[in-house]
């Protein structure tokens, strides 16, 4: 293990909610005066030690985060959206300052988060290489020495003396990445690069990350892609609600993290008489149940959507319960009702009952989905709920060399056969 290159200690970042511009100029002057005298800011967002003085709400994006990173480690940072990952990266890359705690770092930090930042449209590609490199902290002679390499890496030799405003967006990204890749930082921050760009760009990014890590430098890698995290990182920190929820070997932390999904959000229950529905029939509870209880839902695993209902007045066997699985854009992936099972289904019982819909494995793509419940009487829609359940399907395993999400609303595992057409001999 190498020496410690990043030390994060009690790091916190808080924002005052809705306070921007709400203070009067007199307030500001009073605070400014206190600051000039070296007194603590009287309205400091940080000091919530006096909760009696509600000066507007404070949102703790990050609180008491501590970890140490040694040279050569590849640290994965995982967590849900809004957990504080981006805030942590902003603090580490010095875009904004912490409210409390300290970060100590050794060496040059570069970020693959915003390639091509500061390109000026009127300058040529070559001039922008110098400008962009200097923004990232490179010296002119460093860039001089690497210019040929950078231009070759970008693959746009022919347009290098053309103003950047005539470049396609792909060319700009390539040029920006070429500069960032030649920065040779001691600490590299990579944020979700796998989510953007084409396969070629992804391959270059990953290649660069491998280079950097094998040359004994340190990488912080933020991603929602557990497959990539598992295969690239040597250690993983899970940030949840602005705090470090787990820190340890990748397999352990990732499975704890995914397990946390299996317990939350995918189960719902209503007080009697308050579930969605009508006076005739009403939902009481609903759940998404993975085949193995408590295990994360992956693309491979079959699972069950269970709907609990209370039937109060429907005496015929005409009631037909169904579900619709929709994605984040409310697009219906598929709809199914009890009638799919054929006509010999038993009549709907009186009182409370549950229906299970079995979803086979190897059907869903990774992503987040929602369940809408429908109830038909005969051919007529009796009611349809809002989204009652949400669940996330994880990648689970990698198919092929691609780390990103595969295209497609669903991701069935289909059979392929090869037939030779030419018969030799």
């Amino acid at each position, binding site marked *: *293990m190498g*020496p*410690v*290159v990043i*030390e994060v200690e009690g790091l916190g970042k808080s*924002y005052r909610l809705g306070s*921007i*511009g709400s203070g009067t*100029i007199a307030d*500001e002057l009073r605070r*400014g005066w206190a*600051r*000039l005298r070296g007194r603590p800011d009287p309205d400091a967002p*940080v000091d919530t030690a006096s909760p009696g003085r509600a000066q507007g709400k404070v949102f703790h994006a990050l609180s008491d985060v501590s970890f140490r990173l040694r040279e050569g480690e590849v640290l994965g940072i995982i967590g849900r959206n809004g957990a504080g990952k981006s805030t942590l990266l*902003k*603090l580490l*890359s*010095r*875009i*904004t*300052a*912490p*409210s*409390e*705690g*300290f*970060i*100590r*770092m*050794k*060496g040059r*930090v570069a*970020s693959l*988060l*915003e390639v091509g*930042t*500061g390109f*000026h449209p*009127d*300058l040529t590609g070559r*001039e922008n290489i*110098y*400008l962009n490199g*200097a*923004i*990232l*902290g*490179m*010296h*002119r002679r460093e860039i001089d020495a690497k210019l040929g390499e950078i231009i070759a890496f970008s693959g746009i030799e022919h347009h290098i003396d053309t*103003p950047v405003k005539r470049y396609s967006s792909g060319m700009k990204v390539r040029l920006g990445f070429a500069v960032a890749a030649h920065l040779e930082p001691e600490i590299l921050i990579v944020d979700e690069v796998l989510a953007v760009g084409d396969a070629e760009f992804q391959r270059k990014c990953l290649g660069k990350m491998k280079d950097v890590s094998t040359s004994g430098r340190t990488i912080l890698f933020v991603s929602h892609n557990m497959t990539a995290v598992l295969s690239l990182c040597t250690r993983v920190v899970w940030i949840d609600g602005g705090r470090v929820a787990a820190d340890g070997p990748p397999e352990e932390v990732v499975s704890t993290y995914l397990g946390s999904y299996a317990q939350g959000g995918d189960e719902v229950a209503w007080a009697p008489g308050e579930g969605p529905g009508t006076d005739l029939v009403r939902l009481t509870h609903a759940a998404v149940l993975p085949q193995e209880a408590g295990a994360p839902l992956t693309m491979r695993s079959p699972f069950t959507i269970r709907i609990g209902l209370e039937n109060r007045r429907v005496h015929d066997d005409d009631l037909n319960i169904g579900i619709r699985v929709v994605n984040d854009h409310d697009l219906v992936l598929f709809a199914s009702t009890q009638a799919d099972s054929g006509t010999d289904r038993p009549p709907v019982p009186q009182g409370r009952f549950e229906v299970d819909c079995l979803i086979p494995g190897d059907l869903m793509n990774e992503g987040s989905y929602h369940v809408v419940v429908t109830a038909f009487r005969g051919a007529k829609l009796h009611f349809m709920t809002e989204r009652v359940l949400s669940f996330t399907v994880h990648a689970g395993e990698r198919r092929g060399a691609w780390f990103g999400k595969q295209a497609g609303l669903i991701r069935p595992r289909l059979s392929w056969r090869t037939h030779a057409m030419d018969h030799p001999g």
Partner: protein
Amino acid sequence: MNARSSPHPAPPAPFTTVIGPRRPLLAIDLRELWHYRDLVLLFTRRDIVTVYAQTVLGPLWVVLQPLITTFTFALIFGKAAGLAPPELPGPLFYMSGLVPWAFFSGQITKTSRTLVGGAHVMTKVYFPRLVMPISMTLSNGFTFLIQFAALSVMIAVYAWTGPFTWSAGTQLLGLPMLALIMGTLGLGTGILISAATTKYRDLSFLVGFGVQLLMYASPVILPLSRLQKFPALLRVFELNPMTAVIEAFRAMLFGGAVPWDGLLYSATVAVVMLLVGVMTFNKVERSFADIV
């Protein structure tokens, strides 16, 4: 291989960067700024090169702008209103006021946009934020030099052709000091406004307007000699730290009494503005990404 496998943690490495919630307000990391000197020069170059990209006259605009204004002023205020002083040809009087004024007002208006205007870069990547106003000062200084050269040519032409005799001596050596005072005053005021505009956007509208107003309260148009009958107005003019600078600029250029007392006042205001500006800027730049 693991020489440090003692039960005690490894001794703290010599960290190169320490980021904490607070830092002294006047702390400017000069070593870091020096490290980014190439960026300062590149930004300067970019400012100079790109302003006139895709214009036909290009850098000629730098000279044309004050020239056109000069002749407009000479016509309206000099000839029509008869406000120019008798001892100087009108165009020389106005040009010698407009050139330093353009430097000062350029300083304020450009550097006051540092944080809000540079937000698209600064919210994405770190570099010492002062790099931007410093490079703006340099590019602005470059513009000033060109305009000053144009003024020199103008003086030469008048001295060559007309009844105007140019009489200036060693006082010319004081000109760089004036540039320093103006540059400092403009930079300090500019970054102070820049820090304030991250919260109060209104200020960005006020800047252009305010600088314009300030010009009317300076001897750019009205020579102080015409104000002797209006002591109250004269007092207002003298409060403007640019008044003494412009008076001194003309005195050094054409010969005359340099208002040293006034210059001392201007220099003091400049230093105070720079200190307040740097302190405010330092405070705001650390967290402005949160509110921009």
